[in-house]
Structures are given as structure tokens and as C-alpha cells.
């Protein structure tokens, strides 16, 4: 890995780190934004099948320029491809997969995560906001494991990992693990359990930027690069 000009992981590195924890054979739904980047970093030798809630299991990467089909898109409405062994289905069937607990892992973005696992990622609750929820509430209610990728703080430096969410919830107690630019953090009995620190980042540095209770996790390690997956 090349040296970073700023402390902590880049967006790409966060995605790369999250990708390490996706096991072979997993059925995975990736949210819009940084989570979309995860697919390209899954280590070689692991076969992972991507679900997009608009009706495709076996989503592949974006098409070659000029070869896309405007009727083959992902949940973010970007053109994608279908892999060998894919299946198309309608929306109700797609959410049977989600609500029924058949998707192993969902990787989502976040506005706030509380130390009890509450997630807020759909609305700031501002009076003039146009509320838009999409499939986020279904995903967090139904998918077996929820991983979040997010910057550790907002653009103005406010913590996104908080004691309790001030934004409207997407779901209560749903987050299992958080990948930020500074650390890999599990949601556990004592709140935020730091399992891994980005290169050069200290526990204290993370704690100063965290709104909830932060404790060293069982496997706390300083990352000397992108380490092997720990799940």
C-alpha cells in the first residue's frame, strides 16, 4: 500500500477492508455510494453473489461503454450486467429474499450509528426534506448481517458514531460492524468495540471523534495495511 497523505483509510481502502470480510459463497446486497465499491475488492478465490433489490441475483459490474441496457440497472439506477448463473425476478419476490432472511450480508452507508446498533441513513428529519426511504428499512430488518461503511465524522467534524441517533431511524439495533476511515468497529455489549485501527491512528484519536462509548475490542489490532479478514 502507498502512503496516505491524510490520516486513515481512503474511500477505496474502506471498501477494500470491508471486502475482506465477505466470505466465499455469500449472498450480498451492497448499498449506494462507498458500499458499491466493495465488489471490486473481494479477494480472489472467493465467489460472491450480489443481489440488487430491483430484481436481480447475480449482478455483475458496469457494462462496457455502449453495451449497456437501460432496462438492466441496479438499485442506484446505474447500468449493470448479469453474471452467468444470474436470475431475474419481480419486486415482491426480491423482498422475499430480503425480508425472509435469505441475504447473508448487506453493506450500507450511514448518517449515524448509535452504540446500540441503531442506524439512521435515510433522512435528516429536516422539515423541508423530501423523505425518501427506498429499500433501506427492509434491508436492515431482514438481512442477516448489516455492515456499515461511513466516514467517521461528518464534513464539519461531528461524530457519526453516537450515543443515540438524532436523525430518524432506519432500524433499531441492526448494525453489526462499522468500517470508517479510522477503524473497524463492532457493535457489542459495551457499545463501539474497536477491532482494528487504520495505520497511524490511535484509540484515543478515534475516541475523540466518537460520540458514544468506545472500547477496545477483543481483537484490537493496528492495521499495517489492509489485513486479512477477521470474520
Amino acid at each position, binding site marked *: 500500500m502507498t502512503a496516505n497523505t491524510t490520516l486513515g483509510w481512503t474511500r477505496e481502502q474502506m471498501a477494500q477492508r470491508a471486502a475482506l470480510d465477505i466470505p466465499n459463497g455469500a449472498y450480498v446486497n451492497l448499498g449506494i455510494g462507498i458500499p458499491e465499491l466493495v465488489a471490486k475488492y473481494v479477494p480472489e478465490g472467493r465467489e460472491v453473489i450480489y443481489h440488487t433489490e430491483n430484481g436481480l441475483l447475480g449482478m455483475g459490474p458496469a457494462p462496457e461503454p455502449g453495451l449497456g*441496457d*437501460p*432496462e*438492466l440497472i441496479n438499485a442506484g439506477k446505474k447500468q449493470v450486467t448479469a453474471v452467468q448463473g444470474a436470475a431475474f425476478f419481480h*419486486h415482491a419476490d426480491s423482498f422475499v429474499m*430480503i425480508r425472509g432472511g435469505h441475504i447473508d450480508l448487506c453493506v450500507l452507508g450511514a448518517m449515524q450509528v448509535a452504540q446500540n446498533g441503531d442506524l439512521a441513513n435515510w433522512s435528516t428529519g429536516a422539515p423541508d426534506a423530501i423523505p*425518501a426511504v*427506498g*429499500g433501506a428499512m427492509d434491508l436492515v430488518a431482514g438481512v442477516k448481517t448489516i455492515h456499515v461503511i461511513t466516514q467517521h465524522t461528518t464534513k464539519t467534524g461531528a461524530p457519526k458514531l453516537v450515543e443515540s441517533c438524532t436523525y430518524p*431511524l432506519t432500524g433499531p439495533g441492526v448494525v453489526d460492524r462499522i468500517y470508517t476511515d479510522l477503524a473497524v468497529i463492532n457493535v457489542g455489549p459495551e457499545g463501539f468495540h474497536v477491532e482494528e485501527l487504520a495505520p497511524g491512528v490511535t484509540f484515543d484519536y478515534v475516541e475523540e471523534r466518537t460520540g458514544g462509548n468506545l472500547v477496545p475490542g477483543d481483537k484490537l489490532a493496528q492495521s499495517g495495511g489492509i489485513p486479512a479478514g477477521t470474520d
Partner: protein
Amino acid sequence: MIDKRVESVAEAVADIPDGATVMIGGFGEAGSPIELIHALIDQGATGLTVVNNNTGSGEVGLAALIKAERVAKMICSFPRTANSTVFPELYRAGKTALELVPQGTLAERIRAGGAGIPAFYTPTSVGTPLQGDKEVRSFGGRDYVMEHGLVADYALIKCERADRYGNLVYNKTARNFSPVMATAATTTIVQTKQIVEPGELEPETVVTPSLYVHRIVTVPQPLVESELVAAGATYP
């Protein structure tokens, strides 16, 4: 002989009255029956309740219907759109109401409506603002909210191939909400790229069986919404 074909999109939507509830297929542009929507704009029906996952893009298709102020209420999961200010402006001006429904709950409510199921329980939205004042009930130690089936007077959907009976197959992720909407509407109106002879659709692979379909109109080369939006097109 059973033949559900009609001659034109205008004829297909001619009887939709003011105040009707209309389900419109499509997720973004994929599966959006843009010619049927434009015919509905031409036809003039207003005060509509529209069910769609989104609120359209640019100023064509569903966004154009909304901009023409024909939509009194939207029932959808994601009314924000990258390429349109149409819905947000009317919503903020109080001219269009919004019932926000989680995407999977929306799909399941439509399916339930078509399946004769008046209500069901789902874990989605429990403990969130969208739980609202819905009934919450515990099963096996977990809380669920009660949601109601959703039906419509009309469904406007788009498919890839159809036969005169109304058997349909779709193209890739353009399938999305259309098969469940077809089950939940009193009158289901389909625009198809192609009409084939009965028997050409393999019975094992029919997605929407014929009994859900009432009118079929052929639109061999439908407009592509993203191309229209990129070109700054408007309708009418």
C-alpha cells in the same frame, strides 16, 4: 376468440376517470410505460393517486404527469430523483400529497392486494417514524407492524413480449413491480414491444399469466427516458 389487443395507447387509457388510483410499473426508467403515461397526459384525467417506486425523472413520463398537476397523491418509496425537481416543488407547495412506503412493504402491499390478502405483518419500519400509528404486534418475541393490501383501478405496465391472451414476459430488471401491479388492478393495461402468437411464449417461462391482463397495445420502439432527459425533452 379472446383478443385483448387495442389499436392505440389513446384507446388503451381512454376510460381512466378523474380520481382514479393508477399503479405505474417501472423502477426508474426500467419498465416505465412511457407511451401509456404520455397518452394519459393527453387524455386529461386528473386528481389521480399514482403508485410507483419513484416520481420520474426530467420532464417526461411520470415526471411530466406530475408536472401537469394530474397527481393528487403519490404512493412511493423514493420520491427524490437525481434529474427532476418536479415532485419536490409540487410537494413543498402542498399540491401533491405523499404516502412514503418502504420499498419492500410497497411491493408486498401490492402483492397482497392482488392476492386477496387484506393485511399482513412485517418487521420493516418497526421502531422508525414510518411505523407511524400502525398496529404493532409481537410474534415469537419480535415486533411487527400491520400493513394493508393495496389495490388500484388501473395498472399501466410495459413488457417485452405478449400474446393476444395477455401472457407477458419482461426484459431483465424492467420486470420489477409490473407483475404484482398486474395482479392488483381492476384493469391492467400493457404496452408491449412485440406481440407473438399464442404458444410462442413457453408456458414454463410466462411471468404474468393472461388472466391478469385486460388491454394490450404494441409500442415496438418505446422512448428511452434517460435519452429524453439527457436531451432536455419535455412532454407534452
